[in-house]
């Protein structure tokens, strides 16, 4: 589904603080598979995840999504692909303070111009699915860590993406909530979604939800798992 070919990503190129985050990465991610990107802090997991999720462009190399070369696409098309294909769950949840859980969930769909009533219904359905219906009208800063996490998951799912990307999703959760998160991922995988999680938490990469572990160190893949 996603294919990375000889990817290199350099930050601050040509400057004294130039930093090579990703070097010579070749990777194929198959559909309906749950993949974990494993590695220590600073190994390049987040950078690789943002490249896979069309949030950044590689300095060199090619990325294809469903046989379509996307590296050279203009920003506008990349945004559309990001919105339609990927659902993002961030390490810090990145919910917008001052808005309700419901409004946060609806946000990614705003640029699509869907009817407000229909969009609200879908958002409520997702919150119900994640046992958050009672918190729909609560401002996100009043939610517990687990509730904020589930709100972020609902937001990632609002545009019904084929691929769900999560960056260190359990970093701020206790063991129970981390296991709960993996159960939700199991359900999503069962629903046919492709799951991509960057984590160095054993609860994630040792979970039976994960089909494949890709190990990264110093910006390169040291263990590609199955399907490289």
């Amino acid at each position: 589904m996603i294919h990375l070919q000889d990817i290199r990503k350099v930050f601050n190129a040509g400057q004294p603080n130039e930093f090579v985050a990703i070097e010579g990465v070749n990777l194929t991610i198959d559909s309906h598979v749950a993949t974990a990107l494993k590695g220590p802090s600073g190994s390049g997991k987040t950078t690789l995840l943002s490249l896979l999720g069309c949030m950044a462009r590689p300095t060199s190399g090619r990325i294809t999504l469903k046989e379509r070369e996307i590296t050279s696409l203009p920003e506008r098309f990349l945004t559309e692909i990001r919105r339609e294909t990927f659902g993002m769950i961030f390490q810090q949840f990145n919910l917008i303070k001052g808005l309700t859980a419901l409004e946060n969930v609806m946000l990614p769909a705003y640029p699509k111009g869907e009817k407000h009533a229909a969009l609200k219904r879908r958002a409520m359905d997702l919150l119900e699915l994640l046992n958050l219906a009672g918190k729909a009208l609560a401002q996100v800063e009043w939610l517990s860590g687990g509730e904020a996490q589930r709100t972020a998951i609902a937001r990632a799912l609002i545009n019904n993406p084929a691929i769900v990307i999560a960056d260190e999703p359990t970093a701020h959760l206790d063991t129970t909530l981390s296991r709960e998160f993996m159960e939700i991922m199991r359900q999503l995988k069962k629903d046919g979604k492709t799951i991509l999680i960057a984590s160095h938490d054993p609860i994630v990469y040792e979970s039976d939800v994960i089909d494949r572990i890709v190990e990264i160190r110093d910006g390169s893949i040291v263990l590609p798992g199955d399907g490289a």
Partner: protein
Amino acid sequence: MGAIEKQRHILDFTLSSLGRRTGKNIALVIVYALVIFLIASVLFLADALKNEAVQILQDAPEIVVQRLVAGRHDLIPTHYMESIKTIRGVQSVESRLWGYYYDPFSGANYTLMVNADLNDHPGAIIIGAGVSRRSEPGKPLQPLRKNDLIPFKTSGGEVLTLQVKGLLPAASELVTADLILVSEPDFRKLFSVPNDRATDLVLQARNTKELATIATKIAQIHPDSRPILRDDMLRTYDAVFDWRGGVILMVLSGVFFAFIILAWDKATGLSAEEKREIGILKAIGWETSDILLMKFWEGAAVSLTAFFLGIFLAYLHVFLASSLLFEPVLKGWAVLYPHFRLTPHIHIYQIAVLFFLTVIPYTVVTIVPSWRSATIDPDAAMRL
């Protein structure tokens, strides 16, 4: 349909964004509205006063002829009228008698003017509303009424008592506040003006296009005279009110610059929270144009609210509250202060200029920094 829904969603989000930063935005609207209020008040007031002056001068004589002695206005011999009448194009010539009288009791200067209707009623006067309100030091304010007597001191030192026969309508108060209409014999007695002298001459012409020519001929026949055209008077009023308006605007320019600094500060620096939000919105699929649209709505909402609030308050201030703040500067200086309401008169042109000088630049400067933030890679949100 989708495009309208999209606009609605983004506008909804913008309004809730503004609501989340209530304190900051209310402060901004207050400062912004205050600036608009002050500037619009000056513009409205100067324009309404000029308009009043134009209305009043519409009935003014086309040419006024004064006599100058050593560069000062002096009494004009009435026989000048004979020679002026002979100038081609002059329809009528009349003499006027008017002057100022200092009333030591109230400390006010009155304008005294001869009214031909009173010539058959010597000893009678008609007074303006300001005169009727005169207060005497140490005495409670007692408005003058019909049949009250007012003592005047003639230039010879004698006392001349005149009786109030009527009051001038309050509607004309801007020009009649300090006015007293008297009969010709009383006026001449009061100021010792010889019978063959008048204060000035007024004349009407058959064709207004010939006014300048007539004025030149008068100046040729009587080199000691100064003909003044109605247009010259209008220009003087315009210049006086523009100058006064300018004085206030100069003072207000400080306020205006303070506002520019505030707007610039807001424009050049987005808060970390705002940058974070833009990053998140990009990461979850908002396009750069969606973010700019949101910021445009945000700037426009603040700007338009403040603009209309400022204009509305300025309207109330000028036309209902008699311009409490600027009264002393714009209306002039007098003891008998006119109480009046200006006729609401607003130039759409002025509103448009104010709009283009405030709302448009503000909206633009709020978009610029957002544009800078909105064009960053969305993966920055991954590292927030």
